Every structure is written in C-alpha cells, then in structure tokens.
C-alpha cells in the first residue's frame, strides 16, 4: 500500500515532466508548418507582428540568453567555489554556522525583488561607471543572475568539499603541504564532480530565469555585440509576448517552439553535468 502510493508519487513527476515536454513539442511543431527550420535557428530577426512579412529568427535571443547566463557563471563560479571552500575549510565553526543560513536566505529572495534592485540600483551604477545612457543591459543581468545562482553553487559545492574524507587532508598535511596547497591539489579535485554539478545547476537556473532578466536587461530585440548592449533573452521574450498573442496563430506556436528550445538547452546542460560527474567518478582524476 505505502509502496504503491510512493510509486505513484514518483511516477507523477515523470508524467508531469513528460506532459510538459509533449505539450511544448506538440504546439511547437505547429510553428514549423509556416516557419522554415533554417529561418528559425539562423535568422537574427524576430518580428512576428510585422505587417506582410513577419520574421521568426531566434538566434539573437539564444545569443542573448547565452551572453547573460555565461556572463553570470564567469562571475559566480570563482565567488561561489571560493566561498564554499572558505566555509568548509577555513571558517571557524561560529562563522560557518552564521554564513550557511544567510546563504539559504539569499536563495529565497523573490526574483522580482532582485530585478527591482537591478533597475533602481545596479543599472544606474553601471551607467555611471561606464558612461552609458542606460544600465539595463546584459552585464546587469549577468550580475543579478550570478547573485541568484550563488546560493546553489555555494551550498552544493560546500557539501561536496565537506564530504572529502579527512584522511586525504591528513595525508597531504603529513607530507608537509600547507592548508592552501592541500585545498587546491587534493580537496578541490576530490570534490570536483560535486562542484561541477553545482555549476551546472546554477547555469541551468540562470538560463531559465525570467523575471529578473526581463526587468534588468532592457529587452532590445537585436543581436547583442557586447555585454553592455541591451538584450532580450528567450525567457523574457516568451513572457513579454505570450500574454498578447492571439491563440492558435503561427506567432502563438512559435513561442512554444522557443520554450521547447529552452527546455532542450537546460536538459543538455543537465545531461552534460551528469556525464561529467560520472566521468570523474570513474576515473577519480
């Protein structure tokens, strides 16, 4: 009886996941009766409501998403892994016990609040610092997404670092290594699968995050040239357009296709994470 209930609970997750994928796939595919695959993937112009000649190219949105999320990782990885190493290996117990709950609280800040912070504080700061007319751009989004993925990266990395057996550290110290050398040469490599998993989780979160980027990146629909350009990510585009689009039009379906693309991208990141962790698990560096 209990087993049956738990089995159903477990299955329901798979059913929901499959259902979401099926829905995205079903509606998304409708789009391709009017849009060629090459236009969809390779064109940089997205203008579904253009009179007469609508365009449906997602390339600039995909690049924008990658700009913002990769930028976020460049910022978040060193800070996150460094903080995890500090909390696990260096901080005094009292400091550790205060930092850990504080980081958990960071994770619970609503994304709209983070976006708000991006508009009223970080945006003007970036504009002033770099002499731009507006601070709502890709780098603003990168900073905010870095901030939002830090709790995941820190806590998952910290778990991984903390679970490295004491014996490895003792062996290294007994050979005359410093704490720092031991951290870099033994502890971080031994924890690398967990650290990579944490980064992938953070990256997945950054790719999928919507409200913050919608508020802070300016939403300009064009190919970004650098991190100071205003960008519109895939998520932001769906959020902006889905509310106003007439049902069952090509435009409507094309947004599902964008959603499908997003789904596949995050799945790819997760699969890559899985592969990397397994690979490291087998070879143990």
């Amino acid at each position, binding site marked *: 009886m209990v087993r049956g209930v738990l089995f159903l609970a477990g299955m329901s997750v798979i059913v929901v996941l499959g259902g979401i994928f099926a829905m995205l796939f079903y509606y998304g595919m409708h789009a391709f009766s009017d849009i060629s695959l090459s236009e969809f993937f390779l064109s940089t112009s997205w203008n579904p409501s253009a009179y007469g000649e609508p365009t449906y190219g997602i390339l600039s949105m995909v690049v924008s998403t990658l700009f913002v999320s990769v930028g976020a990782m460049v910022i978040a990885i060193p800070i996150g892994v460094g903080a995890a190493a500090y909390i696990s290996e260096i901080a005094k117990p009292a400091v550790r016990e205060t930092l850990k709950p504080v980081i958990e609280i960071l994770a619970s800040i609503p994304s709209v609040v983070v976006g708000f912070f991006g508009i009223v504080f970080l945006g003007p700061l970036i504009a002033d610092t770099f002499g731009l007319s507006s601070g709502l751009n890709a780098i603003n989004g990168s900073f905010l997404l870095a901030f939002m993925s830090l709790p995941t990266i820190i806590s998952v990395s910290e778990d991984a670092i903390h679970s490295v057996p004491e014996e490895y550290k003792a*062996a290294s110290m007994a050979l005359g290594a410093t704490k720092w*050398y031991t951290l870099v040469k033994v502890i971080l490599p031994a924890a690398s699968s967990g650290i990579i998993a944490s980064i992938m989780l953070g990256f997945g979160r950054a790719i999928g995050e919507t409200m913050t980027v919608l508020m802070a990146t300016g939403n300009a629909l064009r190919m970004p040239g650098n991190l100071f350009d205003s960008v519109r990510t895939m998520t932001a585009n769906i959020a902006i357009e889905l509310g106003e689009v007439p049902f069952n039009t090509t435009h409507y379906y094309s947004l599902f296709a964008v959603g499908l693309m997003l789904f596949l991208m995050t799945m790819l990141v997760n699969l890559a994470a899985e592969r990397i962790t397994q690979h490291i698990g087998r070879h143990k560096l």
Partner: protein
Amino acid sequence: MELVAEREKVAEGETVMKIKKPVIKPKPQVVYEFDISNINVFYGEAQILKDINMKIEPRSITALIGPSGCGKSTFLRMLNRMNDTIDGFSFNGTVLHKGSNIYDKKTQVEDLRKKVGMVFQKPNPFPKSIYENVIYGLRLNGVRNKSVLDEAVEKALKQAALWNEVKDDLKKSALALSGGQQQRLCIARTIAVEPEVILMDEPASALDPISTAKIEELVFDLQQKYTFIVVTHNMHQASRISQKTAFFHMGDLIEYGDTETIFTKPSQKLTENYITGRFG
C-alpha cells in the same frame, strides 16, 4: 689580580679532582633522532600524556605498545605536530628533533613534516593514479623533471615492495588497489620524499596476515635508511621487528628499553602483564 684569582681557582679544582679520581668520560656525541623531555599533553582538561622522557636513536625501529587509549597515537602525532589542529590540544615540554626544538616558534611545521613522514592506520591514498600518489610530495617540493619523477616513483615503489605488482599500470587509480597494496602505496608516497623518520600508526591493523608480513619485512629492510617509530597492538610484531620498545599505560611511559629485555625480563609488573596478554 684577576688572572691570579683564576689560576688559583683552577688549581683548587685540580686538587679536588685529584682527590676524587674521576673517570674522565668524553660525552658521547650522539645526536638523537628525537630527544623528548618532560612532555605533558592535554586535550582540553584531560591529560593524555604525563611527563614523558624518551630518547630515540637514528636508524632504529622503535615499537610503541600499550592498551587502547593509553596515548600511543597522541605521542606519535606529537612528533610531526599533527596534533596541532586538534581542538583543545595543549602541550608543554620539549621535543628535539636532531637537536632542534620542533615546537619552537621559528620551526616551520611544513619543513618538519617533510623530514618526519607518517603512515596512517587506515590506508589513505589520494583519489588519483598510483603515479600521482607517489610523486605528490616531490611535486610539493618543486620537482618537475619527468625523468627524475619517473625514477623516484620506481625507487619508492620498489622500496615499498609494490613495484612488481603495479609497474604495468601506474596510471591506474590508487583506489582500485587492495587494502594491503594501498598501504604499501602510502608507504611509497612517504618514502619518495626521503624523510629522516617514518612514523607508523598501526600500519597493518586493517590488513590480512600476508600484507602484514610484507609491511613488516619492508620496514625491517629499510631500517638502514630511516628511523621508524611504529605503534602496534601486535606483540609478535613488536618483538620481531623493533630494537627498542616503549610501553605506555594511561598516559604514562611505564617502561622503555631494548625490545629483548622488555619481552624477556621486563622490570615492571604492568609491562609483564600486558605483554603476556593478562590485560589490554
């Protein structure tokens, strides 16, 4: 005036000496591997080692024996300062290693540990290849030359009696080795940096009799090169391989001397009871 006074003193001394007829024995110039005096160790309030005095000669094998919890591991870790990071550890007394005080503020604990290596009770190879494990200490010491490293790996693995079993696949993960092989790898890793002393804390307690015999044998073979201090619960092992034995009991060093004497005619009743298996 002063010179005269000096001479008189010397003269006085001479006459005194003549009367006492002293045997003039030049002090032997032994530099002890470890010269340990008046050691007290505490974990918090609890006193773990009580006023220990011990001199350990270079290139000898010393066995540390005694019932569980008597402080053998604590004593051993004191010699490479691996106790330092334990919460509540405090210490007084002096430990001289080759004449220099290892608890001196000027002593770099990393340098000490490069000279005083340690093999742990539970085999603890790094989750890296066999090769990487052996060269870890050399890399740490700045050795980069591939052929130097290759040679050192072969030499260390041979000394640790592991070479023949692993020479065909040095890239294999150390974790894929058996427990006995892992422990010999740990010995090779310690030997590779050519320390002066090798501390061993029950190095064979987790191993089968054949692996144990191999480790005893290699320690015996290497005693010309290194000073070994070995904690063991195995009385046969202690009597087989060591020249000196120290018997600890509840933080006291009850008896320390030639292994043969300790095992044939111990001067303390407690020692006799322990080695004959009447307690412990």
